[in-house]
């Protein structure tokens, strides 16, 4: 075949395995969308990034403060009303940075804080509808209880607080680790707000492998040969073909040839390459399985009975 194979747009790991728990929502259009649930580690990473950004806000404030030409005002006594007002503004800014940061970003068009965007996770409404401002407010108000309170309490407990502080701390720690103990990986704020945090990755659309199938009289398979495998094997074959690693293709081709009893042409020159063999078999297998699928008779894998 003279046709030059197009370069695959997706190098390596082209067909991502859908591992880990998924969160399904039914959109208002009535379509079920499955998202991969964000793991605790991913969320912790996003949170750490956000906390670093939040910690930089006071640093920026102090920098601005230092850069302002305040010496000219000749306010030296520390209890002057000017300093007190500055102090109050400072504390208030910090307070809103703490409580408003998450709400501001999650209510925006991207439904995610900068940290979440880096980790490619988003907040969605669990019922599939609109993410409402009330839900965002609730899930982030609870953050106060889940995150900032344990931090405060642990500082107090370390400074010799009473048993009440310790109990409250343990309770809050349990809340903070809640995502580890439920299937939806949701924290308390997610349950109360009716929200979930999910992966929203970007995927590139590659070319259709069937378009590249080599056409040759040697690469026409009998119905029995095509019926050897099911959908799971088709997926694996797709992955192998998109990765295009020579050694893997050789091994896979050898196994398929042995299983379907395929005998190649006598002449060595006519022998198709492993890749064109696999492409042709992929095309034939997919045509067969999709044909069955249209008739409502899907075949999960090779162990599924044919009829």
């Amino acid at each position, binding site marked *: 075949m003279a046709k030059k194979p197009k370069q695959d747009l997706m190098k390596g790991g082209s067909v991502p395995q859908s591992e880990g728990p998924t969160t399904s929502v039914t959109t208002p259009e009535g379509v079920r969308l499955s998202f991969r649930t964000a793991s605790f580690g991913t969320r912790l990473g996003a949170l750490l990034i956000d906390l670093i950004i939040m910690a930089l806000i006071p640093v920026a404030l102090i920098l601005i403060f230092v850069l302002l030409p305040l010496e000219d005002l000749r306010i030296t006594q520390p209890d002057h009303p000017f300093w007190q007002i500055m*102090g109050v503004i400072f*504390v208030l800014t910090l307070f809103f940075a703490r409580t408003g940061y998450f709400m501001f970003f999650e209510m925006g068009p991207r*439904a995610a804080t900068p940290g979440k965007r880096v980790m490619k996770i988003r907040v969605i409404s669990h019922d599939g509808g609109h993410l409402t401002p009330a839900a965002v407010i609730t899930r982030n108000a609870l953050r106060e209880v889940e995150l900032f309170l344990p931090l405060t309490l642990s500082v107090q407990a370390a400074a010799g607080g009473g048993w009440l502080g310790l109990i409250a701390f343990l309770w809050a720690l349990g809340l903070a680790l809640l995502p580890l103990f439920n299937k939806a990986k949701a924290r308390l704020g997610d*349950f109360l707000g009716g929200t979930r945090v999910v992966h929203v990755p970007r995927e590139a659309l590659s070319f259709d492998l069937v*378009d590249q*199938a080599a056409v040759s009289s040697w690469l026409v398979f009998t119905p029995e040969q095509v019926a050897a495998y099911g959908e799971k094997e088709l997926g694996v074959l797709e992955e192998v073909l998109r990765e295009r690693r020579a050694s893997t293709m050789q091994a896979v081709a050898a196994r398929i040839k042995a299983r379907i009893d395929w005998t190649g042409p006598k002449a060595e020159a006519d022998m198709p390459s492993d890749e064109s063999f696999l492409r042709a078999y992929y095309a034939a297998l997919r045509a067969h399985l999709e044909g069955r699928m249209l008739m409502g008779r899907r075949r999960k894998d090779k162990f599924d009975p044919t009829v």
Partner: protein
Amino acid sequence: MSDTPPLQLKSQKFRETREKEWRALARQVDRAEKGQVGSFTTEELLELPVLYRATVSSLSMAQSISLDRNLITYLQALCGRAYVYMYGAHARPWQVVKGFFLRSLPQSFRTLGIEMWLSFACFFLGALGGWLMCAFDPSWYNALLGQSAQGRDTSATTEDLRKTLGGDGDTPLAVFSAFLMSNNTRVTLLAFAVGVIGGVPTAFLMIYNGMMLGAMMWLFTTKGLGIDFAAWLSIHGTTEIMAIIIGGGAGFHLARRLMFPGHLTRKAALASAGRTAGTVMLGAMLMLIIAGLIEGIGRQTITDTVLRYAFGGTMLVGWLVYYLGLGRDRKGADDGQKA
């Protein structure tokens, strides 16, 4: 070696006809995610939902006719991104703030009517109990207040106590920042949070804090400073104590919906309760900030007893009018809040 016509699968034809729409949607979502929605033309904006629906329908179709995993993964990811964008909160900050303060907050407060009364009763009975306990046995005072007495203990003289009510003392800022980390914010949050474990700890917290207040009232009254103390406290106390009571009410609401979810599942009941209680809690947090500001500034500047009462009373009436009066523009609140 004869060329046969290339395979034409249904899924191939399907992709051929629809791919243009997917690519167009992907371009638009890319732009939207970069925050360039403002640069969309009117046609593009009108096109977006059409493309979205077409792609979503492509996905459900692809899942039943195609076995190309790359295609399905792509469509799933694209629909996911478009969905997150289309059904995001998209709130204009100003409208959210306006809607929150003029509607949701007072409406949620009224939804929690019974819980608020319960919370108030716990606090009030606690205060009464604290007073009576100290009146019968003064050693209760130190047991109740512990380290938080700050020199206002039973051994203090009338003069010492009067000084704590006076205009001079800590600098306003020190008081203010100390407040932010202080007892009241913690109590309010805790009273709300522990509502999730059944409401008994919430009741305990409300009663305990009421007792502390009652004990303090008792101490100042025995020294003949009861009226002055109440005046001093009322400046910020009306706002602050109301915030604590609201926190307790929100906690009781969580507990009630958790124990008696009604016709909903427990998870759904908790989610709806969380929205209402969370809204109310945000209001309580803001009240605590306001109380902190009043405490920092007002306590030192307003020193006359009558003025103090007037100020505290005005604040209380203001809050009550706000919470009970606002957001009643429609008959039968149909704002999605479930009682």
